[in-house]
């Protein structure tokens, strides 16, 4: 009951306060901010045990999913062997969340934003299968390119001890595709923003949501412009940095 109350309170105050219960997953306890006000309709912050999501009742999925990767937790995550279950988030009002039926025969993978492979305990791993953390993702993309990107980001966190990561969909163009009776928006692209405090480094990667092996490295500023989301927890001084690429991708 206490948990439910907390979730409701967080939902009600998503635009008012910047620090609900799960602000430890974002740098300097600052959640990403929706600079494009059109994104803000029907959004609510959902706190899980080791990641946080801003869910949109318009796209019927996450706008961003934030996690704090640490070496110790990633070591635990590597050991995980368990059966998980995709599920419809019970904390969302009816009609806001995607349903299992939406994805069935949709031709798209149920693509994790905060990946299952980063979760360091049973509860967190089970929670990462909430459809609130999932977007319709091209199957090839999810299983190859995206998996390599996730793995490269894990290696960075392992090397430097920790990293803050935000993953989400981008919706570009006048018309968007949808799947299922709920009309879940299909992202045109996916992004990851990575901030590595120990390396004093921040960067973003963007990939088209199609079968591709290509990813684009962006500065955090460039991604902020593309996404309409500001990553306020990342130091401004790092937002113009451009890295060469990701190892092993």
């Amino acid at each position, binding site marked *: 009951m206490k948990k439910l109350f907390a979730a409701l309170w967080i939902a009600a105050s998503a635009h008012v306060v910047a620090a609900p219960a799960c602000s430890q997953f974002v740098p300097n306890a600052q959640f990403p901010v929706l600079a494009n006000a059109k994104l803000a309709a029907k959004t609510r912050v959902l706190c899980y045990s080791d990641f946080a999501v801003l869910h949109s009742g318009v796209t019927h999925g996450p706008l961003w999913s934030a996690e704090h990767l640490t070496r110790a937790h990633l070591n635990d995550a*590597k*050991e995980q062997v368990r059966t998980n279950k*995709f599920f419809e988030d019970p904390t969302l009002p009816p009609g806001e969340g995607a349903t299992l039926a939406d994805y069935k025969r*949709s031709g798209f993978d149920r693509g994790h934003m905060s990946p299952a492979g*980063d979760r360091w305990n049973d509860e967190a791993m089970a929670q990462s299968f909430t459809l609130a953390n999932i977007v319709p993702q091209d199957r090839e993309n999810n*299983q190859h390119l995206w998996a390599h990107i*996730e793995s490269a980001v894990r290696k960075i966190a392992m090397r430097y001890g920790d990293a803050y990561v935000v993953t989400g969909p981008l919706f570009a163009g006048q018309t968007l595709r*949808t799947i299922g009776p709920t009309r879940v928006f299909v992202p045109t692209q996916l992004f990851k923003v990575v901030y590595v405090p120990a390396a004093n480094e921040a960067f973003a990667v963007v990939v088209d949501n199609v079968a591709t092996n290509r990813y684009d490295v962006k500065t955090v500023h460039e991604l902020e412009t593309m996404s309409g989301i500001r990553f306020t927890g990342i130091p401004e001084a790092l937002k113009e940095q451009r890295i060469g690429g990701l190892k092993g991708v």
Partner: protein
Amino acid sequence: MSDFHAFANDEDVLNIEGDALTVSNGTTNIEVAGTLRIGKDKRGLKAARALKQAVDDIVAALEREKTLPDESKDDPPASTGNVQNPFV
């Protein structure tokens, strides 16, 4: 692991070593995806056992079927829709 029942539903995913290897259940198809490095160690044994158990379960489920077609056809994809982008 014992809670993975081949072809029983479309929701279950067996994760081995995080998401290094995933066995995604389905009522018509099961998908095995990823790359698993099995070390000559206890962790490797744990992973190998999980994989074996899942594959054994898949084989048993298929063998239980009295009439298996040579190749089943995929269900036709569900139709997708379009929507005006409300964010531009």
